């Protein structure tokens, strides 16, 4: 139904930018995961650097605040020997002041090689990627409610560390799907990797219309939704959604959709618990579950570095890649 995503591929169909999971092949995802796997022990070495991006400049261009994503991108790039510039930019809306493209082109004029971009507007990364010279790479670190593809990659990487075969997995994503760029990317990635079933769970006000077109099922309660589930992905509920317009109260939400030891029991005994962070303890997840032995929330953060290294390596070109695998 929807047009292809030409922007993130070059004319030969090679991945040039990393903007969206949608439209990627299973081979591409598996390739990224495999190389990430080879990077995972890097952090434990004495010398944590390889020269893959030596002499290249990577710009962390964050129009929205972020700590963990920006930091893991920075560490990932530095481990690949890139020079890293962090920019916490603010921008005016629409016509006033410098436009987002002006900002990006100004920085590009300083001969940068890679942009990692986060913006509040869906489609911002696509817009930027389609207006930069061919040799510049763009990684989407979250655009509005659209996608957060590197987060989804580190999530499926973490799942693969614990569960062998994607085709056997039933996965539940719980919470605010409507506003979640993470959920959209996860749904694409999990479907491409061929999981058996994806369910989204939450009140109707937080579920986008026609969510079924993305290849997921909807369940309105935790008991049915978590039945036979192997992986539970909890999403962050932003406090600003708690104004009574989408959810009546924190108490009612937590009682229905909070992940506690009681609700965790609805899932399989070996079900793993994930959360892209930052977590709201007592709003979507109880501390005992977040810190419990089924939780892999901190593994997700650790894995973020290797996965982002792998994605950068993929974009920087094939010859170097083969040298390190």
């Amino acid at each position, binding site marked *: 139904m929807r047009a292809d995503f030409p922007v993130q591929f070059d004319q030969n169909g090679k991945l040039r930018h990393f903007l969206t999971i949608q439209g990627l092949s299973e081979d591409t995802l598996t390739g990224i995961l495999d190389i990430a796997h080879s990077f995972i022990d890097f952090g434990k070495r004495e010398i944590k650097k390889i020269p893959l991006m030596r002499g290249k400049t990577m710009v962390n261009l964050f129009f929205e605040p972020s700590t963990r994503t920006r930091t893991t991108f920075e560490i990932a790039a530095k481990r690949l020997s890139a020079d890293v510039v962090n920019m916490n930019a603010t921008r005016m809306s629409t*016509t006033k002041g410098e436009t987002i*493209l002006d900002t990006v082109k100004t920085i590009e004029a300083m001969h940068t090689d890679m942009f990692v971009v986060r913006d509040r507007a869906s489609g911002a990364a696509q817009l930027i990627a389609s207006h930069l010279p061919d040799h510049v790479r763009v990684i989407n670190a979250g655009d509005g*409610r659209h996608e957060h593809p590197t987060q989804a990659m580190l999530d499926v990487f973490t799942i693969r560390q614990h569960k062998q075969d994607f085709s056997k997995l039933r996965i539940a994503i719980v919470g605010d799907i409507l506003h979640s760029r993470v959920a*959209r990317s996860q749904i694409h990635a999990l479907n491409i990797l061929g999981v058996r079933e994806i369910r989204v769970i939450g009140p109707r006000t937080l579920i986008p219309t026609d*969510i079924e*077109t*993305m290849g997921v099922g909807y369940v309105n309660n935790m008991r049915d939704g978590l039945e036979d589930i192997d992986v539970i992905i909890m999403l962050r509920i932003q406090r600003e959604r708690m104004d009574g317009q989408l959810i009546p109260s924190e108490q009612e939400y937590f009682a229905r959709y909070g992940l506690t030891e009681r609700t965790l029991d609805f899932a399989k005994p070996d079900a793993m618990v994930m959360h892209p962070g930052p977590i709201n303890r007592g709003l979507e997840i109880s501390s005992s579950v977040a810190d419990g032995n089924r939780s892999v929330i901190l593994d997700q953060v650790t894995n973020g570095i290797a996965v982002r290294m792998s994605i950068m390596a993929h974009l920087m070109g094939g010859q170097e890649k083969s040298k390190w695998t």
Partner: protein
Amino acid sequence: MDISIHNGHLVDPANGVNQVTDIHISRNRIKAIGDPHQDFRPKRVIDAKGRYIFPGIVDLCARLREPGEEHKATILSETRAAASAGITSLICPPDTLPVIETPGMVHMIQERANAAGFSGIYPLGALTAGLKGKKLTDMATLQDAGCVGVSNALEPVENSLLMRRAMQYASTYDIPVFLASWDPWLQGNGVVHEGFISTQLGLPAIPEAAETVGVARDIALVETSGASAHIYLVSCARSVSRLREARQRNLPITGSVAVHNLLCTESDIGEFNTFFKVIPPLRTIRDQEGLIQGLASGDISVICSDHQPHSLDSKLAPFSEAATGIAGLDTLLTMAWSLVKNNQLEVQTVISALTANPAQIVGLECGNLAVGRPADLLMFDDRIIWTLDDTTMMSKGRNSPWFGHELTGKVVLTIKNGKIVWEI
């Protein structure tokens, strides 16, 4: 100037004409169709063999940006673009800067259009002061000054009581009311149709109910106020059903659709293509089919351009922040004609929706080519293949999703009030 046009295929739905014939123009009126009888000696004879002759198009919704936003477009640039596209009459919503709510503004716009000498402009006056939805305007004075109707443009009138009173007041003087009927709460800050595209792209959505609730309210208010209303820019199949019911009850309500809502759907947005960002949004295939059927059945009677010229820069932004609207004058007939070419609509349906029907709604005597009517007409060659680019696009706006595309069918001659205002 006296002109004869020979051997053109004349389509004049209001008079039931659809045949090859000759047309004769004397001064600014239609002198004769077929044989001119007396010894008519035209100054110019035009051969229209293999070409169509249609009444000049009456575009029910076009923004010219003057006054207030002349950096985007001007009355001169846009009336010239209109003439080149066979559009001889333009109805402008009052959302200029400042809004059209004084006789002086109406006169100024019309004088500038006259000075430009291309197409005529017929402004709509503001329905409420400053389009703010709080207070009625001097509608009768605006009508006297030349406004062909009143409208709140794209600004909703939230207060239903005030809307009812505005309709009652307008009906006192038989002023048609033009409504963009949608519920502002459901509309919210949406930028695309609520459906799979809004879900996949994570864009704020406009549900179908935003329009069906608005249309239902306004039909109910029309029914109890006695006003005659035109609901413009209908985008949902379900709104067409509401219009059909209203028509079956003989309510004085008509509806129009923007040509792009007939040709495009939400899928065209693809990867955040801001050129397809319009309000009301492009909706589903089912809606597209419903709108086309609505035209065929007469429940929607008008196709308009909803022309909104912008600079290219204003579209180079993230989707939610990019400018809304399409510069549509240049392509109105070409795009509408594609519905005839693809056998989706009859030629008479499309041509009356562009000419006689809108003319009747605003009470203009143009839009049909009976003897004695104004000589507003166009000659169209449906075989010409051309590219919409900087050399061919006459509007100052460049925000067309068809920019750079090859199109089929072009207006080769336009006559306004007996004067040739466009010829290639």
